[in-house]
């Protein structure tokens, strides 16, 4: 490990607790705005276009009530995961219903292995219901960010 510790994947600044969104596009945009405001995305519309291109290939709703819009993009500066919890859920095209947890996963185009390993670790965690439950139960963005950091980057 020659580099400093990589920046946190998720901080409370890029979490939305109690997201209200009619569509997955709306949900994705709200999260992307968080990334842009935090300096993690340099070109909001360019990034959203990359996410949309991926989403059009196959919807990213998954069993267990999660949606994972994602892209590798030249408009991303640091591997990031913006997270939203939604009481009503947002339709991400999963067979078993709307997503109550949404993870907007952003990877820089030229990210190196070390950084992408962190995203891979998060992806593996998403499969586990106890992990998802702990995020749904969280009451604040800080709590959600802390859970992700603890589980993925420790």
């Amino acid at each position: 490990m020659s580099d400093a510790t990589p920046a946190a994947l998720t901080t409370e600044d890029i979490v939305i607790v109690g997201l209200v969104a009619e569509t997955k596009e709306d949900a994705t945009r709200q999260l992307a705005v968080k990334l842009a405001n935090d300096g993690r995305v340099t070109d909001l519309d360019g990034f959203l276009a990359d996410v949309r291109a991926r989403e059009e290939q196959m919807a990213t709703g998954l069993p267990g009530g999660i949606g994972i819009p994602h892209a590798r993009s030249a408009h991303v500066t640091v591997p990031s995961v913006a997270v939203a919890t939604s009481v009503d859920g947002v339709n991400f095209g999963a067979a078993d219903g709307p997503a109550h947890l949404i993870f907007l996963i952003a990877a820089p185009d030229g990210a190196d292995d070390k950084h992408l390993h962190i995203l891979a670790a998060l992806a593996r965690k998403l499969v586990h219901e106890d992990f998802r439950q702990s995020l749904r139960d969280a009451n604040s963005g800080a709590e959600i960010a802390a859970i992700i950091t603890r589980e993925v980057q420790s």
Partner: protein
Amino acid sequence: MKIVAVTSCITGIAHTYMAAEALEQAAKKAGYEITVETQGSAGSSPMKQSTIDAADVVIFATDLEVKDRRRFNGKPFLQIGVSKALADAENVVAQAVSSIATLPKDGAAAPAAPKAAPAAEKAPKNDSGDKPGFFSRLFGSK
């Protein structure tokens, strides 16, 4: 029961790893050994050939072409999309194991071989052979 699996997806940052985890969990639950090679963006570390050789069945949960596929030559394999492994891992594992006898063997009938094969191999090993005269006939040597 030993299973090996390969996962891959278009972007290579999410489904690849989620499917790997789901397959590992499902196999563990069923009491099987499994080794998964994630061919994603975070660098893929190829599994040992000895691991492949020892496997009873292969699961390709891949949306992209399997890298270095020849490593799996002769192995019975189940080909599915990465999403199916993610959504239905337990059934995928069960299906792979229960249908070993009837699954196609990798490399056996490779339908697209002639066109896909880059630069006809020199075939020093004469592996698919049994036709010693094939090349001489092809090139008309007498």
